[in-house]
């Protein structure tokens, strides 16, 4: 700040004011435009998506959502197989990830020795840093064969009477996809759940201990009830992540257009279908239908994320 030259203050001040007169509004306008972009981008994405999908929308209408055909040869398309696959694979993933994430959060906030808390928390979060294409490669070559040759035959022999575990074990299918999605959703759910657990009022915990509760009883009666809304938000956020994953899922799910009760059977999801047909879709109706899938995926994930954010925000405020 060499601005204070007392000898000739006048001309310098005038100079500063000119710069200020340009700089002040310039930064305001530029930053406001950038802020506007964040809002506009969202609308723009939706607009482009529905615009590009319009040939398929006008041809198949809303019935697209309930139709099970995907026949590029006869130019007849429907999304139901993929909506089913998306929902089931994400649901199974969250079914496994949620209790695991809660358990890890309890370990990290209540059980772990102080020195290992941060390293373990960082390692769990690093799980989210693994690129999905690498997780998919690992799924194809290591996880898939393990499932097809060991875990699925094992499940089949014990629980084969349940339709979920009927059918022939295979390295590629719904279960492989769900497990890969579990790995992807776990760090997100864990990090939010852990944050929520950390905000449990100390008086509640101490009160539970003073009444003679064991550590688990303290968690069950003091930590979990307070954290419930936050956990719900975290799970829905994890769901949003799982719904939209394209690459890793397309690598391991087998990309079939069918609805089978068995978790071992190949299936498809919205995102995976888009990723797997990116090159083969013929311009025109095929491409428009693929973009229609993207539009449906966008709508689902925006709804899921809005709900999750609202819940997480509210639980943090209270």
């Amino acid at each position, binding site marked *: 700040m060499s601005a204070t030259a007392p000898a000739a203050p006048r001309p310098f001040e005038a100079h500063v004011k000119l710069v200020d007169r340009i700089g002040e509004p310039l930064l305001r306008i530029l930053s406001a435009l950038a802020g506007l972009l964040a809002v506009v981008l969202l609308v723009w994405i939706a607009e482009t998506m529905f615009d590009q999908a319009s040939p398929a929308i006008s041809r198949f209408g809303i019935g697209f959502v309930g139709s099970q055909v995907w026949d590029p040869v006869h130019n007849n398309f429907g999304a139901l197989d993929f909506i089913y696959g998306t929902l089931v694979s994400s649901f199974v993933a969250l079914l496994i990830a949620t209790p695991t994430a809660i*358990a890890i959060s309890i370990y990290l906030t209540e059980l772990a020795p102080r020195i290992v808390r941060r390293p373990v928390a960082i390692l769990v979060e690093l799980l989210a840093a693994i690129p999905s294409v690498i997780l998919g490669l690992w799924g194809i070559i290591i996880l898939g064969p393990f499932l097809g040759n060991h875990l699925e035959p094992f499940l089949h022999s014990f629980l084969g009477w349940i339709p979920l575990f009927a059918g022939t074990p295979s390295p590629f299918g719904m279960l492989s996809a769900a497990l890969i999605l579990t790995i992807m959703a776990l760090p997100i759910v864990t990090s939010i759940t852990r944050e929520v657990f950390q905000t449990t009022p100390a008086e509640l915990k101490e009160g539970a201990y003073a009444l003679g509760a064991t550590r688990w009883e303290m968690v069950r009666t003091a930590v979990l009830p307070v954290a419930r809304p936050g956990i719900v938000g975290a799970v829905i956020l994890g769901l949003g992540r799982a719904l939209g994953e394209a*690459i890793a899922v397309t690598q391991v799910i087998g990309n079939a257009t069918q609805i089978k009760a068995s978790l071992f059977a190949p299936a498809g999801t919205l995102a995976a279908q888009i990723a797997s047909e990116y090159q083969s879709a013929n311009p025109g109706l095929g491409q428009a239908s693929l973009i229609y899938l993207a539009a449906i995926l966008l709508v689902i994930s925006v709804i899921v994320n809005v709900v999750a954010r609202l819940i997480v925000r509210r639980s943090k405020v209270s």
Partner: protein
Amino acid sequence: MESSVVNPRPRLLAPAPGARRRKAVNRGMEVLCTIAALLAVAVLLLVVISVLIKGAPAINLDFLTKNPVPFGQTGGGIADSIVGSAILIGLATLMSVPVGILIAIYTTEFARPAVSTVIRFCLDILNGVPTIVVGVFIFGLLVLGGAQSGWAGAVALAAVELPIVARSAQEVLELVPGSLREAALALGLKRWRVVLRIVIPTAAGGLITGAVLGVARVAGETAPLLFTSSIFSNFGLTTNPAQAMPNIPVTIFTLSESPSPQDHAQAWAAALVLILFVLLLSVTARTFHERSRSKLRS
């Protein structure tokens, strides 16, 4: 407590009924929670070690410095993908970081609280938009009717990176003490000077680590590039973003879908290069992140 009437010598500190069971349940739950944490760490190690073991044998100087060879021949490398990825990520970061920081400046320094809440919310939603949808969006915007290009790929990556950078920048700027701003304003500085000469330099460390985290995140993104920079007229090194550019994630993806074990070996090696880069960036950024934040807080 009825037994105490019968008991000639009442035990004042008798364990409550069911104490053993409660202790056992507690122990069981503690063990389960510990196993869950170990499991998550084990999965991370399993993936990283698989990549190390399967990728290391194929890594050599040729792999890093040579271009891929035509189908059927042995050897070849991923030099073209490394260069392509570097350019794509570089361009995406050059686009998203300044805009992201501007958004953060607007929401923390200029906008009314209600407006910043809306923008913050939009950024969170944007962050949740599947990256494949972002890819399709840029495809419709820049590729359809023309051709895939490095520019389209970079813009797609930038759209993924933007909300991450903006949100982390925002959190850092909010940590800059208000007293610093007030002091500067009281000395007669205009708002924009306060931002550029006081707020930004104070937050610089946090802003940089936020940007590095953004880079780490998009470095592994495949989906946005599938529609924008994945079909190459001729394989080989290109530094011209007007053409579709080969890149590491798409290379791993196509190699992993191939049935040939030789392609899989190459995919693992490329995965090793990518995972080392991403983990290195994430770990250093995270370490600095905490440090720069606690510095701001103190």
